């Protein structure tokens, strides 16, 4: 298993990044920091899927004169381009909700908000 993990080191990096994000979400008290954790988890997923499309010695999938195969897989890149835009959308919505919480309650610390409950 260690050998397999070593050949798939990029995927292992994504797993580590995912756990860092999860750690932020669990332990941080500030809502913005929690959301940064969620963003790190998103990034881990993006990195994993883009790494799936890598081909040994592959070029960017841009044709035209002088392009030589192999090319990397364009589909994960296209999917993640879509995913990044959706992540931006959710991030902006979450941040605006946090701003609204701050205006309403005067704090964005999770434990203080819970006490107000």
């Amino acid at each position, binding site marked *: 298993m260690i050998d397999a993990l070593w050949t798939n080191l990029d995927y292992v990096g994504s797993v580590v990044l995912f*756990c860092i994000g999860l750690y932020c979400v*669990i332990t941080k008290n500030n809502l913005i920091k929690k959301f940064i954790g969620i963003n790190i988890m998103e990034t881990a997923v993006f990195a994993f899927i883009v790494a799936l499309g890598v*081909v040994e010695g592959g070029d960017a999938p*841009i*044709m*035209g004169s002088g392009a030589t195969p192999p090319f990397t897989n*364009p589909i994960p890149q296209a999917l993640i381009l879509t995913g990044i*835009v959706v992540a931006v*959308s959710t991030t902006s919505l979450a941040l605006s909700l946090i701003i609204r919480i701050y205006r309403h309650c005067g704090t964005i610390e999770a434990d203080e908000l819970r006490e107000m409950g």
Partner: protein
Amino acid sequence: MKRALTAALLIIVALPMLYAVAQLPPQGSPTSPAYTHVSARYLEAGPEEAGAENVVTAVILNYRGFDTDGEVTVIFTSLAAVLAVLLGVRTGEKPLAGQPVSSVEASVVVSFVVRLLAPAIALFGIYVILHGHVSPGGGFQGGAILASLLIIITTILERAQAEALVPLRIRRWLQIAAPLAFFTVGVAGLVVFGNYLQFPRTHDLAWLTVTWLTIIEIGIGVGGAAILATIFWTMGGDS
């Protein structure tokens, strides 16, 4: 105690993922299933069929155009949601203090450099948008560059100057530019070829494909820039 629980939870989460990752085919092998099915065809036929030498652009705008059509609607919807959440102030809720938190003037050097670079940044953004089908780039990337230009003008120079670049009169139209461009091209495909968002398939109509791709790219770029900048202004300002 809490630390030990957190560590245990992280290990419980990480172990199955590591196990699964170890089962995947070796990274970068050209025989992996992700590479041998549909993407081989996209790489082979993409530039001819979809009219874009950049196969990523061909995939997002042509092969998976419906997906991207939905996605530009998502980002527009997020703008609508941000405006709904932040602009509707209920009674009894006091808006943030009118004074900006940081009122330090930007130094002369910084503002001069921003003025100097702004046209170049704008040019680069437009280049990335318009060359998205033959080189790395595209509507989203170029839109992000234009939006960052608007944001840097807002933070370093004055908000009014940045807002003047997106005039209030046509701002709503700019924000909805991406769905509109998709809708226009989609209906054009419906009228000419009989299906929503159908691109021409024959070789002698390649110019039409490129034109339609460019229309969508410009729509996405302008719309994305306007949406990102408006979100920034809505969050940053209390007006």
